[in-house]
């Protein structure tokens, strides 16, 4: 069975929101061990050795990211990114609502590793229940003495502040998140300087995904070798994959990286009876589609990159032969047009124009020349924006335009009436 239970251990069986239950299962042991037996640099070294890569979308090696922090500069901040909003992703929400203590422990470990005395968690505004569950868990952890001053007698103070977003996909981008945390509009910043050098309040800041930080606990517990032993050469360890769309058992599945795509779809119950697979979006709304011929490809960062797409946040959306790809493309383009912060002209204008052109296709009023224009415009707005949002419009659109041109051609107006 390729499904493993590391972070998902106990979900659906025990009430992990209760600190007692969590501690009975070994929770907060690694935190105590880190604070009493290890130096921050030791935790960093273990993380680096495990090969853990960011689980939020970019897949940047976590240890390397931490190493960008300038030495000896204080204060520095750790921000946990729980602004999950990538279409098709629902792993962070599950972790937040089901095992909040795991997130708290992960954040505290991460903050200790980078010697930050003030950590934040940015929770998506829509996650009202998650926020309430987390606040409750934080109160329990505080009462147990895991958050606050002089933790475990180590002399290390650590405060954790919960910050709620208010409905903006772009705040999942780390610099936009920092602006939002500073009480500003969630507009991404120009980089460099990177947040590790100048982040929150212009101080060195690390932004890590919920899942990334949570994996620190099992890595400390079982050792970096255990984590590095699974996966592929450069994609180590486990990952929670959110599978949805046209499958019979959509849900979160924790697997070793490198599991074949076919296996993942089987895990999710496979397609509905009598349906044929048309396309798979392997890494959230920002990724290009893969198709039937890629089914035996291992699901890891490099293989997907080689296939012209990405692993992203680990969200698989499966589409069968009932799918209208013009409508699917319109859906995602509208999403990005709607969520564009409006700072960069290519993304702000390009997204809306593509949305309008695609809407024309939906009404069977497309022009023959539009098909080529969709490909050209989406390509030209790519790579010239401050953040990756504008670049996220092209992949899906281009991949379905190339694969299913007949669906677009069928929507071209039969006769062009000129006034």
């Amino acid at each position: 069975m390729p499904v493993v239970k590391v972070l998902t251990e106990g979900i659906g069986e025990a009430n992990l929101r209760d600190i007692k239950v969590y501690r009975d299962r070994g929770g907060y042991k690694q935190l105590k061990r880190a604070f009493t037996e290890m130096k921050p640099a030791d935790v960093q070294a273990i993380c680096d050795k495990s090969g853990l890569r960011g689980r939020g979308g970019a897949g940047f090696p976590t240890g390397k990211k931490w190493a960008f922090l300038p030495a000896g500069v204080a204060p520095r901040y750790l921000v946990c990114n729980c602004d999950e909003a990538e279409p098709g992703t629902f792993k962070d929400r599950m972790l937040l609502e089901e095992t909040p203590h795991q997130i708290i422990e992960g954040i505290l470990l991460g903050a200790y590793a980078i010697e930050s005395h003030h950590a934040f968690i940015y929770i998506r505004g829509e996650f009202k229940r998650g926020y309430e569950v987390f606040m409750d868990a934080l109160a329990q952890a505080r009462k147990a003495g895991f958050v606050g001053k002089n933790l475990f007698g180590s002399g290390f103070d650590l405060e954790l502040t919960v910050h709620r977003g208010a409905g903006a996909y772009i705040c999942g981008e780390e610099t936009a998140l920092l602006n939002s945390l500073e009480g500003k509009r969630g507009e991404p910043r120009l980089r460099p300087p990177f947040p590790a050098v100048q982040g929150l309040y212009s101080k060195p800041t690390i932004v890590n995904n919920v899942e990334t930080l949570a994996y620190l606990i099992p890595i400390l517990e079982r050792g970096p070798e255990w984590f590095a032993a699974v996966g592929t050469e450069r994609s180590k360890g486990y990952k929670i994959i959110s599978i949805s769309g046209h499958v019979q058992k959509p849900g979160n599945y924790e697997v070793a990286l490198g599991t074949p795509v076919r296996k993942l779809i089987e895990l999710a119950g496979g397609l509905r009876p009598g349906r044929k697979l048309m396309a798979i979006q392997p890494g959230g709304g920002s990724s290009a589609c893969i198709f039937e011929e890629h089914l035996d490809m291992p699901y890891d960062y490099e293989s997907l990159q080689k296939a012209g797409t990405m692993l992203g946040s680990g969200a698989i959306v499966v589409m069968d032969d009932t799918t209208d790809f013009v409508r699917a493309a319109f859906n995602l383009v509208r999403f990005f047009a709607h969520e564009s912060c409006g700072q960069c002209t290519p993304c702000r204008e390009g997204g809306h124009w593509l949305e309008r052109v695609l809407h024309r296709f939906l009404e069977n009023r497309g022009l023959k020349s539009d098909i080529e224009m969709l490909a050209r415009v989406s390509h030209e707005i790519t790579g010239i924006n401050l953040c990756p949002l504008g670049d996220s419009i092209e992949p899906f659109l281009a991949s379905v335009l190339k694969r299913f041109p007949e669906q677009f051609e069928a929507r071209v107006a039969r006769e062009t009436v000129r006034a």
Partner: protein
Amino acid sequence: MTDFNALRDQLKPQCEAIIAQYEQPRSALLPLVHLFQAHEGYASADALRAVSEMLDLSLAVVESTVSFYTLFYRKPVGKYMLQVCRGLACTLNGAEDIMAYFREQLGIGHLETTGDGLFSYEEVECLAACDRATCMQVNLNFAYDLTPKMIDDMLTAMRAGKYEITPLPQTEHPPRTWTLRQDLQVSHGDKSAGAQDQSAPNNPGGLDRDGIIMLDRILSDEARFKGRTKERLANVEPAMAEAIEE
């Protein structure tokens, strides 16, 4: 106004605690607006003014920031805020039918509120519950695996004032097919019959009457903040402050 002053005094300790959490007070902007909205149902002009005073920001800055975030309603919304997911995974599982059904039953469209003030309706982006598509939120509480029957029951209970938010058990998924509908596009122009006299909750859409009132407030606010701005400037850019003085 007196009502609001009472609320502000009541929330003062909470506000101060929130501000104290951050190294810089401005960080408290979103949490404070959340707090007022939780009590008033929307982010009122009074609330924004109060936040601007607490954080020593101009009203324009607060207004500009709040307008960025879709979860801050700058106008009163219905008692039940119905936010249906229009993300890709939900759409693949029939969200367009669900949305059409909602519109039909409510008589209002995207970003509209019913005349009786009971319902506001919005079609929102992916809510991160794709495994339970099609999904929605009622006042930010999830409802999953929507069917027309569930919607009927929900709306009936809401109209009778008996709607309770209960966590739904994980069930098997009702079979659905992708259907083609042409009525998807959000109406930008005319209002639906059920929403004639109501303005959109979080989309100011240019300078309507409320916008002009807000603009008026911002402009008439100048005297209150002029001094402070100058003081602040003197700390950061003394040369520039002197130049302005001259």
